[in-house]
């Protein structure tokens, strides 16, 4: 017997209609929490449809023989793409299998019944975000792995992968009154009038060690944690009354590195835009040719129209808002 399926609707930035169906209430809740700023009434027509189903051990994944070339690898699996069929597959061990068909605007995810709690965070986060990147890319929005905050409608981007200090920077600037666009991902939208940054005001995922630096968050053990995640989830609007902005114009890109040695001071150093392009190029998922080139073009437009810096983050977090204000001028 099938488990009951719950469908929720969302509208991204007021124009992309998204329907998410899941047969697991915890997974549906985790996704709804990520997309809470985009909640919408149900609609007949949707642009993108995500379906999540639990499956028994014995069920087979259809069409799994040739999944195409690897476009991204992670410790527990890979993302592959088949040019001939324009299909993207993702897996997490043999516990989760995802099929994304961008031409149909559809993503289907199958999760091994006995592993749902183990993989819930991965399914609701990277295994959802990567297909969303691909679907939105076909509509001219290009994803970037970066935190984005804003001061007087000028957006600062902090690109980087997990552990580079994005969340610490986000909290530090939110505490100082900066506006919030997103902690982990942003989207580039090239327009005739210039490039826009579209925010994705997700929850902020924090290690317990990071939580300890921000007493206003309370005890780490009291904060919620999605099953399968080692981090705690924080909604910035709850703790800082942050203004969540849907979009803004890029002004500054700062590539953060956390200095491990205690007592070191934070500092900014100018960076060549060509170097910034090289650093950001891995954001381009190398699937369909035209959109992959469009993605690289959008990143080039971003670095041409932003001031680029390297940011060494020391122990003096409280100086960071001042540093950012100075450099924004």
């Amino acid at each position, binding site marked *: 017997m099938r488990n009951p399926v719950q469908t929720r609707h969302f509208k991204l930035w007021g124009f992309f209609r998204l329907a998410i169906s899941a047969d697991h209430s915890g997974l549906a809740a985790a996704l709804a929490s990520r997309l809470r700023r985009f909640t919408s009434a149900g609609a007949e027509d949707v642009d993108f449809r995500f379906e999540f189903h639990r499956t028994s051990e014995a069920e087979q994944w259809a069409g799994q023989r040739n999944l195409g070339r*690897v*476009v991204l690898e992670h410790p527990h699996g890979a993302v592959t793409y088949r040019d001939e069929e324009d299909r993207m597959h993702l897996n997490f061990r043999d516990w989760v299998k995802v099929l994304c068909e961008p031409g149909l605007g559809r993503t289907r995810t199958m999760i091994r019944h006995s592993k749902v709690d183990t993989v819930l965070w991965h399914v609701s986060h990277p295994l959802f975000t990567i297909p969303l990147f691909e679907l939105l890319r076909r509509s001219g929005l290009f994803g970037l792995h970066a935190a984005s905050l804003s001061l007087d409608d000028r957006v600062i981007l902090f690109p980087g992968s997990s552990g580079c200090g994005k969340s610490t920077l986000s909290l530090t600037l939110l505490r100082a009154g900066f506006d919030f666009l997103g902690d982990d991902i942003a989207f580039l939208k090239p327009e005739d009038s210039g490039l826009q940054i579209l925010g994705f005001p997700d929850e902020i995922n924090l290690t317990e060690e990071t939580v300890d630096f921000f007493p206003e968050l309370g005890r780490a053990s009291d904060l919620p944690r999605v099953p399968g995640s080692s981090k705690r989830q924080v909604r910035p609007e709850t703790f800082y009354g942050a203004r969540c902005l849907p979009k803004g114009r890029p002004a500054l890109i700062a590539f953060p590195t956390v200095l491990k040695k205690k007592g070191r001071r934070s500092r900014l150093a100018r960076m*060549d835009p*060509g170097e910034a*392009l090289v650093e950001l190029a891995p954001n381009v998922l*190398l699937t369909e*040719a035209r959109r992959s080139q469009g993605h*690289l*073009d959008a990143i080039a437009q971003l670095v041409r129209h932003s001031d680029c810096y390297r940011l060494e983050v020391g122990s003096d977090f409280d100086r960071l808002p001042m540093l950012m204000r100075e450099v924004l001028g």
Partner: protein
Amino acid sequence: MISLASRPRKSLDILTQEVSGTLVLLNRISGEYYTLNEVGGRVWSLCDGRSVAKILSEIQAEFDAPESIESDVLEILNELASEKLVLESA
């Protein structure tokens, strides 16, 4: 092996962008990333099926380079070919 008679062409699987003199090449199939400086980037841009001899004379004229640049240009082209960024045609 690329020679003066070769007519290299850019591979269609390569994505490119240039910012402030740095050319970034992404091989969509292998997933490899490359960067080229100004001269390397110009050599790449001239790989449109014309002969290496013609590419060489363009580079010599544009960069006011000595004749010894021939070995540098051939080295760049052979590296581009070995990474399948350009395809050789006789």
